[in-house]
């Protein structure tokens, strides 16, 4: 049987990291044990019935018993989460899902991140030696502060839509440059971010025949494979992305 928990935790730290992201930290032994980047938590934000469903968030960082998540306000529930204060309680299910592949032989590893996909990839790049971490944002003010990226073991490259930081344009342009520079046969891509971004990354990977993994963020309810709400089409048919994913090898994703 999988080891799953549903813990009441107290917020130990909660702060706005920049224009885009908020960070919440809490302490929990069961939720911090043997966590791999790419896994996630399912959080009941209020003890009452609004929001009604929980919301999934990736592990952003785990140190000892301390768990951090990094989130952005996208709708009602995340807006409510942002009003929580130190000491407030959250009800948290985890650890959920399958992580990113940690060890790939020989190949150079490129992480491609955007939006809500940044947290798990920063976690991955802190845990393991990566070669590149490409981060795409709209503008400079959404770029994570240096302090949050101090332990990343990878070369970080930025793209912004408005050119206010790093390269102007989409993060796939950065990826294209890396592919040109490093050679397609030498790369392994791991990506998480907005659907359109991941679709572009996967399309490029397919074009060049590069292997990789994407962490999908389907809308979820149960997060343990019971509701069949978050299915992803694979060669074996529909599978729940909360259990079989959220990380999927590119070649398991329908074109």
């Amino acid at each position: 049987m999988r080891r799953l928990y549903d813990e009441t935790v107290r917020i130990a730290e909660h702060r706005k990291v920049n224009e885009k992201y908020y960070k919440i930290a809490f302490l929990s032994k069961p939720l911090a044990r043997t966590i791999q980047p790419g896994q996630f938590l399912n959080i009941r934000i209020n003890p009452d019935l609004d929001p009604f469903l929980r919301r999934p968030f990736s592990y952003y960082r785990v140190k000892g018993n301390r768990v951090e998540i990094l989130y952005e306000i996208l709708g009602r529930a995340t807006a409510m989460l942002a009003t929580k204060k130190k000491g407030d309680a959250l009800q948290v299910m985890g650890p959920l899902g399958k992580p990113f592949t940690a060890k790939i032989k020989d190949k150079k590893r490129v992480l491609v991140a955007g939006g809500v996909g940044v947290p798990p990839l920063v976690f991955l790049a802190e845990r393991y030696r990566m070669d590149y971490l490409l981060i795409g944002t709209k503008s400079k003010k959404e770029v994570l502060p240096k302090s949050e990226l101090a332990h990343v073991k990878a070369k970080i490259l930025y793209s912004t839509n408005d050119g206010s930081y790093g390269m102007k344009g989409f993060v796939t342009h950065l990826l294209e440059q890396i592919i040109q520079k490093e050679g397609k046969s030498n790369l392994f891509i791991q990506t998480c971010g907005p659907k359109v971004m991941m679709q572009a990354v996967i399309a490029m990977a397919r074009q060049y025949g590069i292997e990789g993994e994407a962490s999908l963020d389907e809308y979820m309810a149960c997060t343990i494979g019971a509701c069949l709400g978050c299915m992803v089409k694979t060669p074996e048919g529909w599978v729940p992305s909360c259990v079989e994913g959220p990380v999927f090898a590119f070649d398991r994703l329908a074109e």
Partner: protein
Amino acid sequence: MKSKVNLETKIKNLTFRNPVTVASGTFGTKGEYAPYVNLERLGAIITKTITLKGRAGNPMPRIIETTGGMLNAIGLQNKGLQDFVEHKIPFYRKLNTPLIVNIAAESIDEFGELTRTLTRHKPVVKAIELNLSCPNVEAGGVSFMRKRERILDVIRTVRDETDLPLIAKLSPELGDVLEIAADVLKEGADALSLINTLKGMAVNIATRQPHLSNVTGGLSGPAIKPVALRYVYEARKHFKVPIVASGGIMTAQDALEFIIAGADMIAVGTANFVNPRATTQILEGIEEYCRSNGIRHINELKGSLHNGKEGPVFGG
């Protein structure tokens, strides 16, 4: 020492250790909730709807939150009868919890075949729940009259094929619930399951598209609890048969409302997604309530709703 409360509940000749079960389609296919709940404490387990052949279901998005509930348009995704018999029945054979299999079909013949096959697995399959009302696969525009005729055909066919207890699951989307209930009971159903989801929808105002790929979906959760409770109450007034209640049961308080209104079994559905321990917490809450109210057998509580005013009130 805590005094013991007798929570035994019956459907026909079948006895359940307690009234707490799970609503079809909300508890996985085999043991997803085992990390959170001791499955052998449940009174029974009701499966997700099984169809004769496997069904792929609807495209994503299939679910969306609404106020106090959610919409789903899963579209009865399941691997079909054969897979169920081969891979799920062995799991439930080892489990000391009665299994109720929920079925649906597009034709009378399929209903017949499903029932025949499941009846052959009687030592494991303890009862059949007929999903007569899934709003996500019903062809649109079918009139209440036609639905009613079809339902009666289904009951007759299925009744001929099995002596397992038959539970007819209804929803207001089918027409007049009490009228249909009277019909299905006359044709041989042993119990009622009230209610399935209500058909609803949600719109994404940013894209001006429906939130669900299927446009509409089934509304579940506490939002529909008052409606479910009212149908259980009305059915209890009219019929003596056992009633399996579902519709927004999140807490023991909710469950007790349904029991007092007349429910025999409490099917916990959407609540599982919000609180994976909902089932056993509800069970404990029911026991606790019985103990502190001096109730020694759950039957004392069932249908005990009374309407006598307690003395005059200024507005009363």
